[in-house]
């Protein structure tokens, strides 16, 4: 086949694929789960490749693909019927990646500040005391119910927002906030008890 004809076929193929995506998106907006499956099948691989090129870590890219589809689901009303689906989905994927990067850098800063705090404490009180404190924190954390522990760790250590934690746990945002609050409160009580003893 001549190159021009090949290019024409390629363009037509891309147009057909985009039209099929738009049909799936419209079905998805109408509430059809099959349409979501078709959308996932068509986009997941490409989104994974794109996210992998941004984050350069396969397992993070897999998580971000899932997160992108959650975000696509939440903002599916913003898709304008008749317009191409791909730029819309990729813009959401990029947003998810940027949010992830922001959360990671926040987590990194938190860990650095923890490390600095630990080294200062080490100088002042000695390594044995610091290790004992860490053990106390670990024990207190273990004494918190699992759902509250997860909320505390995800928000205060991993740096996830409550909306993200709620999405992961499949609960409302207020429930995620309450879990983290109650978890911290319980940890404080357990630490105070271990201080007294």
């Amino acid at each position, binding site marked *: 086949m001549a190159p021009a004809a090949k290019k024409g076929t390629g363009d037509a193929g891309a147009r057909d694929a985009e039209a099929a995506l738009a049909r799936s998106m419209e079905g*998805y*907006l*109408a*509430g059809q*789960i099959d349409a*979501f*499956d078709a959308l*996932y099948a068509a986009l*997941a691989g490409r989104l994974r490749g794109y996210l992998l090129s941004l984050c350069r870590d396969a397992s993070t890219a897999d*998580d971000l693909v*899932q997160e992108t*589809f*959650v975000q696509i*689901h939440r*903002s*599916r*009303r*913003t*898709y*304008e*019927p008749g317009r*191409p689906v791909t*730029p*819309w*989905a*990729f*813009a*959401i994927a*990029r*947003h998810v990646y940027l949010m992830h990067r922001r959360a990671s850098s926040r987590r990194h800063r938190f860990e650095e500040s923890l490390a600095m705090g630990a080294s200062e404490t080490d100088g002042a009180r000695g390594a044995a005391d610091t290790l004992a404190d860490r053990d106390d924190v670990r024990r207190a954390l273990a004494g918190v119910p699992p759902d509250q522990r997860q909320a505390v760790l995800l928000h205060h250590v991993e740096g996830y*927002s*409550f*909306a993200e934690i709620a999405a*992961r746990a*499949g609960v409302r*945002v207020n429930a995620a*906030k309450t879990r983290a609050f109650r978890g911290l409160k319980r940890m404080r009580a357990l630490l105070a008890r271990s201080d007294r003893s």
Partner: protein
Amino acid sequence: MSAPDLRDRIARDLKPARPLPPPSRRALVLLPVAVAIVVGVPLVNAFRGDMAVIGFLRAWGFSIGQAAAGLTIIAVALRESIPGRSLPRVALAGVLLAGIAIPAGVLLLTASRFDIGPSAGVAFPEGLACFRVSALAALPSLGLAGLLAARALPLRPVAAGSLYGLGSGLTADAGLRLYCDYTTPGHILFSHIGAVAAMLVVGAALAWGIERVRRR
């Protein structure tokens, strides 16, 4: 979360969803507000003294044109709030600069002299009064545009907020120019262009605040 988990979660939550109307149609929601501002500001305060001198077209025509430009910029802000439809950075900067320049351009096209201003002793209070009227008149359309933008998914909230702040400021200034007949550069720069620029900043801050609340 694995793919089957994701599918189960989506299936549990899946309901028909009506897509948002196109940005231009959503911006039309603000048309009654814009009309109320353009007509209301001079009605509540007073019409400028030289309305008869500058003529109907130069008075109302340019104000209507400026308000239409404001609404168009709000439509651009609503477009910016849709994933995949963001403006390129250069175009965004161009729209913002052009929007800020509109009040000066309208003045250059409509004023015959540029020395009509408040007397020396009251220049600041009168300038502040114009600034306040402009800012207060912009607030309803700013709030409404903020809500409309937040219903979509602004991936660059500060850019979207700057745009709808600018659009709201321009619409309010379109009404203000039917009331204020001062043409001195200092007054125009501070009270008119300054108020429009201030609304741009307020819009950006509002959008940033809404995004922070949404993320919690």
